[in-house]
């Protein structure tokens, strides 16, 4: 056994230990520890993914002294590695870009707790990504839910807590459904580890018993996970939660938290229930239709909302629809496209929230009509915001374009699904253009003297302690530019990522 195989376990434990030690540290030390831990995890994940890509295989890692059906296990392959890298990038850059927001909106004595919650969140996400045991999945889903609640309400005012309550109620229904599915799955198979469940589900399916039960279990678990990731009929908590919370929270929530559940769903399809059995239950159609509905309805709601961050949150609903549609296409290319879109959307949406932070200032949200001329005042943020918006719209050269192309390509072989997918992508793209270009035009079109007059007026009213310091401005700029560059890189050279994802999915089941 190679030493490098310990890396998934190390990355989970490093984040956990960082979370624990933040409890005893002051706010500055906690910030350094949190960023350091996430950075180390990032390095470990990059090394691990590279190693796995060269070897082209996956491995399971025993958590303890006992082998497969008895002990807990984690599993690492290229897919898991890429997801881990992506969550680390989003978490790290959210922390650096949102420094102003943490300093001004969070109570001084509780800032270390914010970093603690972030580390716990990262650890639980890594555990969700790597887990090979369905009950471990449930436990870490709960940590993830509670940490997500902490991220929303860290602002500690009435509005934030009310949206956290809504988030919790919806999420707990989701985890309840997931747990009841797990229980039923245990009682018909007698196992909790994914591989063992998979083989006994395949046996049961072949023998023809329990066909109703398997369908219902699949539906319950899928619905549970899609409630938690905010798929269309269950999306009502999203806009409040994303728009009210502080900047790094909304970047992380939209960028990685909801994506962890979708990855678990993909694991459920390929590694627990098994692709063929899952397909025979017909739940794919459900996912596909819900995804398309989310794409359209999310965009319509985004057009109707007049506030910047709220609009971005609604746009998140529509993008999650894209991901679910990709899964619902029900072939390998669709799953690859879905995972590709998980990554591109996570990077893009967190970039949007981070850039929007410069425009909103200390206010919670800003009217889109008030954006006039702000593009000249914050050139870097405006540029990255526009880049992210173009990527979401699906402008060529950006990552979002590749994702949409992969989604459309995947649907070509699938009969009726092709028409649905292509039409939905077309309509949703047009709607995306409507609401994002409205922002970009507002940002840039009203320039010149008007903008400068506004600037002096704004500076006079802004209290000095709420304004970002020079240092914070610099690292905010560096973070957003870095994210935009990653986005452009994926757009220019998607080959590497797609080949890793395809290879990873091949060794997935």
């Amino acid at each position, binding site marked *: 056994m190679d030493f490098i195989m310990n890396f998934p376990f190390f990355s989970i434990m490093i984040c*956990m230990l960082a979370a*624990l030690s933040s409890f005893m540290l002051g706010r500055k030390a906690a910030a350094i520890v949190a960023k350091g831990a996430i950075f180390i995890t990032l390095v470990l994940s990059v090394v691990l993914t590279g190693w796995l890509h060269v070897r082209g295989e996956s491995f399971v890692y*025993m958590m*303890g002294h006992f082998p497969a059906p008895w002990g*807990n296990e984690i599993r690492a392959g290229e897919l898991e590695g890429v997801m881990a890298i992506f969550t680390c990038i989003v978490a790290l850059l959210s922390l650096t870009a949102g420094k102003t927001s943490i300093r001004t909106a969070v109570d001084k004595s*509780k800032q270390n707790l914010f970093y603690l*919650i972030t580390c716990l969140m990262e650890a639980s996400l890594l555990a969700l990504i790597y887990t090979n045991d369905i009950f471990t999945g449930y436990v870490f889903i709960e940590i993830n839910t*509670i940490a997500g609640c902490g991220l929303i309400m860290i602002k500690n005012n009435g509005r934030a807590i009310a949206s956290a309550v809504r988030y919790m109620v919806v999420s707990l229904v989701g985890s309840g459904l997931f747990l009841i599915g797990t229980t039923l799955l245990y*009682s018909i198979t007698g196992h909790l580890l994914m591989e063992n469940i998979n083989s006994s589900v395949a046996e049961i399916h072949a023998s023809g018993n329990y066909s109703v039960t398997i369908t219902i279990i699949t539906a319950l678990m899928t619905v549970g996970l899609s409630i938690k990731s905010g798929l269309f009929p269950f999306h009502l908590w999203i806009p409040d939660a994303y728009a009210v919370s502080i900047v790094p929270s909304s970047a992380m929530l939209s960028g990685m938290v909801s994506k962890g559940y979708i990855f678990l769903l993909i694991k459920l399809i390929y590694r627990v229930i098994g692709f063929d059995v899952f397909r025979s239950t017909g739940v794919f159609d459900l996912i596909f239709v819900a995804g398309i509905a989310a794409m359209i309805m999310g965009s319509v709601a985004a057009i109707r909302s007049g506030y910047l961050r709220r609009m971005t949150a609604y746009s998140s609903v529509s993008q999650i629809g894209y991901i679910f549609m990709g899964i619902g296409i029900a072939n390998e290319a669709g799953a690859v496209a879905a995972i590709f879109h998980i990554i591109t959307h996570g990077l893009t949406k967190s970039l949007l929230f981070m850039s929007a932070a410069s425009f909103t200032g200390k206010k919670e949200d800003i009217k889109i009509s008030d954006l006039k001329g702000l593009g000249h005042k914050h050139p870097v943020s405006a540029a990255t915001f526009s880049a992210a918006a173009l990527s979401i719209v699906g402008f060529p050269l950006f990552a979002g374009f590749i994702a949409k192309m992969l989604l459309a390509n995947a649907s070509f072989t699938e009969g009726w699904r092709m028409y649905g997918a292509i039409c939905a992508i077309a309509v949703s793209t047009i709607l995306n253009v409507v609401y994002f270009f409205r922002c970009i035009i507002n940002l840039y079109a009203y320039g010149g003297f008007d903008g400068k007059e506004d600037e002096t007026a704004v500076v006079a009213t802004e209290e000095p302690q709420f304004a970002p310091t020079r240092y914070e401005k610099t690292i905010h700029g560096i973070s957003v530019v870095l994210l935009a560059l990653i986005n452009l890189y994926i757009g220019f050279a998607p080959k590497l990522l797609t080949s890793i994802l395809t290879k990873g999915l091949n060794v997935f089941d």
Partner: protein
Amino acid sequence: MDRINNNEKKRFYTVFKIVATILMICLAASLIICMFDMPRLFSEEHPGENVVAERYIESGIEETGAVNFVAGMILDYRAFDTFGESNVLFAATICVMVLLLGHKPSDRSEHETVPRTVKNDVILKTIAKFAVPFILMFGIYVILNGHLSPGGGFSGGAIVGSGFILAAVSFGFDRMEKFLNKKSAGIITFVSLLVYCLAKSYSFFTGANHLESGIPLGTPGAILSSGLILILNICVGFVVACTMYSFFSLMRRGKI
């Protein structure tokens, strides 16, 4: 304008109620259909009765040293789950602290009529004087015998925590604060979780790399046996006791 909003709201609620009722009926129907299709309960042919459960019982004592097979299972065979579980508790404590720590009682108004100072209640004080030591002792007994009898860190910790709560209610928070305050509770939680984390990391690491763990299991049935399980139970007990007390204290008066 308001009336229109009200009408819209009413319509929304009627639609919502109808849709939700239908959904609930569908959920109930599908769950019950599913339950009829399930393997027969309480019988020996249940799919859960397989090699997994067999090994937990038949080799449990040899491999973990715990006489209580459930304790052996959750703290040794499937320890990662349990590690996650104690982190759930930790995360919840942190979130409650964010919400309530330093939220001063002066924010309360006349709506909350509960008096904050302890009244001179003779009956409560007398009974608590007798009961609290026994409650604490029983809690400690349950924690220490977690690997030998029913119970363990969580149940024992909950008992100890409720003993603390009873003491705080009857003798006043000021007297509890002398030994259980924000600092000491924080240090106890931190050290226990750190020990837990490091002990389990050691066992995961040695297990996965096929190294001998080198932890003696002792004679099964003795109090000092079953390797790490006793230590882990004590750690969990400390964490849970502090957590229970701090939940109560935070909700009651906004500080630990």
